């Protein structure tokens, strides 16, 4: 047993145990405890030797994503405990649903971690599929018309997407088999990297298109994004936080792994332009769609589409700076966006509504939550000294230096998104307070913990993280 196995075992056992625990408080605590255990075992990955098995492996790329995932899962579980307590009090969730929720939460974390550490294309696919199933169930948790519709949409669109991804995976194997022979090796990341150079480029092209569309659906790239806003808006907010913060990253991780593979084959059509165009379309669409939103959670979901667009664009551009920026942006976005959802979750609870028009003056009525939201949105909008500014700076400058024409739609999209976010932020956070102004029982720790990390990262990145990013950036080409 290696540390990797512990990372997977903790949520697996936790999921089973939580499915059995009927007590509300104990379940919430247990959820936190299991998440903490997962985080602890993921941190142990730093100290042990890199693991490299036939099914699982840990390398520079996924190690930090694993830790990030475990960390956000942990902070979200903290947020979740105070969020869920409120939901149970107001009667929106029954104890049985709660049990189901906690079990699914851990199962979801398990699938995410499995997708990250899987060394096998097939295994990774299974894990992503599992993530779809678990979250689809949680999105529909409230059983309102909207929630069921959102879950249905989520399930159908991601089901088709995941099927296409499977086809891409099969095609990948088709290309690998003649070179590497039959067997597990032909589906292992670690084994494929060398021989990919001799594979048939046509099949690889075909495979990449299916994988990009398939996993791209889960990333939320336009025009495959339709499931994302509704799933974020209608499910419980902790799920929105992990969807935006983690699931999108994991799906993008899958795309990037394939891009890495293709990078070593001379004959393939460069995946860059495909990713650039999908990234730009997501960025522009996400930004434009921000303007007409009435539901605050749906708005931030569109902002996730926007940011996934930026990240995909950055990786599409490639090169040391853009790849580095993309990795940084992935990390920062997941911390920031989940922090925003933490704030939004409590705000929606305290105001009793998710409608933007019905919320205003938060900094006056609930300073801690309100300023937290301001800080989060300021960060997500790309203002310094927070982390996203650094990555956007790198993306913009390197794009301008290499492909000035691409900088135009990029800047346009960023500014459009910025305009919409600030517009809504001002109406929500400032002005005379509206609605209920009663005190809120919110756990602010996860919110501010994330924001402080984002703030620090905007000014200083620890050298080990930089080393990882740079290694991965090189691998990504």
């Amino acid at each position, binding site marked *: 047993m290696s540390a990797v196995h512990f990372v997977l075992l903790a949520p697996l056992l936790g999921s089973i145990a939580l499915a059995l625990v009927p007590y509300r408080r104990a379940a919430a605590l247990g959820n936190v405890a299991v998440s903490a255990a997962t985080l602890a075992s993921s941190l142990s990955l730093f100290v042990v030797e890199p693991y490299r098995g036939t099914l699982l492996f840990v390398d520079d790329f996924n190690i930090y994503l694993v830790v990030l995932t475990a960390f956000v899962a942990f902070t979200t579980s903290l947020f979740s405990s105070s969020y869920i307590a409120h939901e149970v009090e107001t009667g929106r969730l029954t104890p049985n649903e709660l049990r189901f929720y906690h079990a699914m939460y851990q199962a979801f974390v398990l699938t995410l971690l499995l997708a990250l550490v899987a060394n*096998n294309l*097939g*295994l990774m*696919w*299974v894990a992503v*599929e599992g993530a779809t*199933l678990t979250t*689809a169930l949680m999105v*529909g948790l409230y*059983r309102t*018309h*909207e929630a*069921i*519709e*959102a*879950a*249905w949409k989520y*399930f*159908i669109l991601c*089901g*088709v997407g*995941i*099927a*296409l991804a*499977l*086809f891409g*995976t*099969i*095609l990948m*194997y*088709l*290309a690998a*088999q*003649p*070179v590497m*022979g*039959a*067997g*597990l090796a*032909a*589906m292992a990341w670690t084994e494929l990297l060398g021989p990919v150079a001799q*594979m*048939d480029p*046509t*099949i690889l092209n*075909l495979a990449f298109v299916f994988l990009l569309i398939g996993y791209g659906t889960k990333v939320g790239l336009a025009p495959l994004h339709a499931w994302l*806003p*509704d799933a974020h*808006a*209608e499910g419980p907010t902790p799920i929105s936080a992990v969807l935006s913060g983690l699931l999108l990253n994991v799906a993008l991780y899958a795309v990037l792994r394939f891009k890495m593979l293709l990078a070593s084959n001379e004959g393939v059509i460069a995946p860059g332009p495909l990713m650039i165009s999908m990234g730009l379309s997501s960025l522009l669409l996400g930004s434009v769609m921000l303007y007409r*939103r*009435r*539901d605050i959670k*749906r708005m931030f979901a569109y902002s996730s589409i926007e940011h996934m667009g930026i990240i995909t664009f950055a990786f599409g551009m490639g090169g040391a700076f853009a790849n580095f920026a993309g990795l940084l942006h992935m990390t920062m976005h997941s911390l920031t966006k989940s922090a925003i959802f933490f704030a939004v979750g409590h705000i929606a609870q305290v105001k009793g509504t998710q409608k933007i028009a019905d919320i205003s003056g938060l900094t006056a009525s609930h300073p801690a939550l309100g300023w937290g939201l301001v800080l989060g949105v300021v960060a997500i909008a790309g203002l310094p000294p927070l982390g996203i500014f650094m990555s956007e700076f790198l993306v913009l400058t390197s794009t301008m230096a290499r492909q000035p024409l691409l900088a135009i739609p990029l800047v346009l999209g960023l500014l459009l998104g910025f305009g919409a976010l600030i517009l809504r932020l001002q109406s929500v956070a400032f002005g005379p307070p509206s609605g209920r102004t009663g005190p809120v029982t919110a756990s602010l720790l996860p919110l501010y913990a994330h924001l402080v990390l984002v703030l620090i990262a905007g000014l200083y990145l620890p050298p080990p993280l930089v080393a990882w990013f740079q290694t991965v950036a090189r691998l990504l080409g």
Partner: protein
Amino acid sequence: MTLSESTIYDVTHLLDGTVLLLSFALLYQRRLFGVLSAFALQSLVLALAAAWQAFANDAPHLYITAGIALFFKTIIIPLALHRIVVNLGIHREVETALGIGATLIVGASLAALAIVLVLPVTAASVALTRENLALSLSVVLLGLLMMITRRNAVTQVVGFMSLENGLLLAAVGVRGMPFVVEISAAFAVMVAFIIFGVFFFQIRERFDTLDVSYVERFRGERH
């Protein structure tokens, strides 16, 4: 008994071609029960193809795949969908978003696109013949086409599963594909059905219909 390469190829090709033909048949159907029958038939041919690969390539685990396809997709799922249609009193005509003729023309173009796509592949560099690759690619695309040109939820589900048939067709055709894929593909179909069932249940409970456009009245933001 050993079979010559050409025999293996011919039979595989024949079966795969039949699957594609049945995909077109799915698109051609005007009545819901016709769709279900065509799907059952397609799944049957898929099962045969899987069994043939198991037999020809001496890969016994593919028999399991064949069995799953035969059992679930040929019998259980069509029967279940048949019951749903009857019980819920769903309109028995196929409601099209794009006319049948037009759908078939688009389908034919997609098949042509699939051929164009695999043409540059050199025969030696791929574990599946070019023809079979083109066939399964076409089946996948036609399944997707069915999902977007038919309004009714049942036909959409069938379209989705037809898409999966295309996947399986490719998967079973490859020599030595590790077990993971087959199992997971079959697993996906199963889970998909379960989940779909859950949704059907809820949807019936809430909306008394299976027409997806009713569900979509609640697309959020229009409160």
